[in-house]
């Protein structure tokens, strides 16, 4: 009887562990995207970029970072969503479980329906991913994508 009880406990523990890891992925998240116009011509400081501007300045040579648009979406993985960034820019995002507490984001960055960049990224909650490069008005466009 004792062995049977131990066996049952081990089975329940394994089931709970597997179920818990699945449930961890099922919690609701917010997918946040900010479109930034990086340039050297000048821009006023924007509080919406306070958390990221100093980091971008360390990586890129641009002097100014202007908030250009953005959008957020509440998601429960797996999910598919489109974020409208403004000025004709959109992000199509497919989210799926990636294991190890991360989420796979398959992202397509579009301008008026034309694809600029597509990527697949395994993201961790709270760690931004930077997309960028398309030139715009003597500067460059940057997207800060983050799961919160």
């Amino acid at each position, binding site marked *: 009887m*004792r*062995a*049977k009880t*131990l*066996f049952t406990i*081990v*089975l329940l523990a*394994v089931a709970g*562990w*597997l179920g818990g*890891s699945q449930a961890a992925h099922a919690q609701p998240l917010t997918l946040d995207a900010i479109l930034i116009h990086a340039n050297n011509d000048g821009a006023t400081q924007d509080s919406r970029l306070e958390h990221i501007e100093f*980091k*971008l300045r*360390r*990586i*890129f*040579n*641009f002097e100014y970072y202007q908030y250009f648009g953005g959008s957020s979406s509440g998601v429960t993985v797996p999910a598919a969503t489109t974020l409208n960034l403004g000025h004709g820019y959109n992000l199509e995002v497919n989210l799926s479980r*990636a*294991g*190890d507490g*991360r989420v*796979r984001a398959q992202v397509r960055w579009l301008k008026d329906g*034309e*694809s*600029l*960049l*597509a*990527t*697949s*990224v*395994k*993201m*961790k909650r*709270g*760690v*931004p*991913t*930077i*997309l*960028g*490069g*398309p*030139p715009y008005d*003597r*500067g*460059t466009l940057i997207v800060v994508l983050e799961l919160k």
Partner: protein
Amino acid sequence: MKTDRLISRHLDGEISEKESALLEREMKNDPALVQQARQWQRYGELLRESDVPGMNDPDRAWMDVRRKIRGLEQRDDVKIPLFRPRLAWAGAAAMLLIAVSVLFMRRSADDALPVAVGAGTEVEWVESDLPGAVSMVYADDETGLTVIWVVVDEGDDGHAG
């Protein structure tokens, strides 16, 4: 029939004096009963003198009993092996091994051939439809940011700084 039973009990020394007197009276009146009593007495003597196999050695008999008990226990093992303590632990260990293997395989499939790994971010692939564009990935240790950049060949300001 009653007299037969009296004879049998008499030979076993189990009858009372009253019954013994009754039996004696009947045997005097019926010589066939005397003959029957003698015959049964002889059978009893033959049985006691004969060598009954397996029963003349108590130690050997006890060993046989223990051997039979062990045999029954082994058959019980075959019937319900899952809940014997050692096998239960072996089963639990096998379950854990399977669970870990499944998770490891899922993780291995997920982690296949990453382009770049930053702090918590892993870029699996990048492509661009812009003409002449080249994509690059950069993981910055200082800021913890992972940058996916498209370099557009316009000879102008499309650069990563």
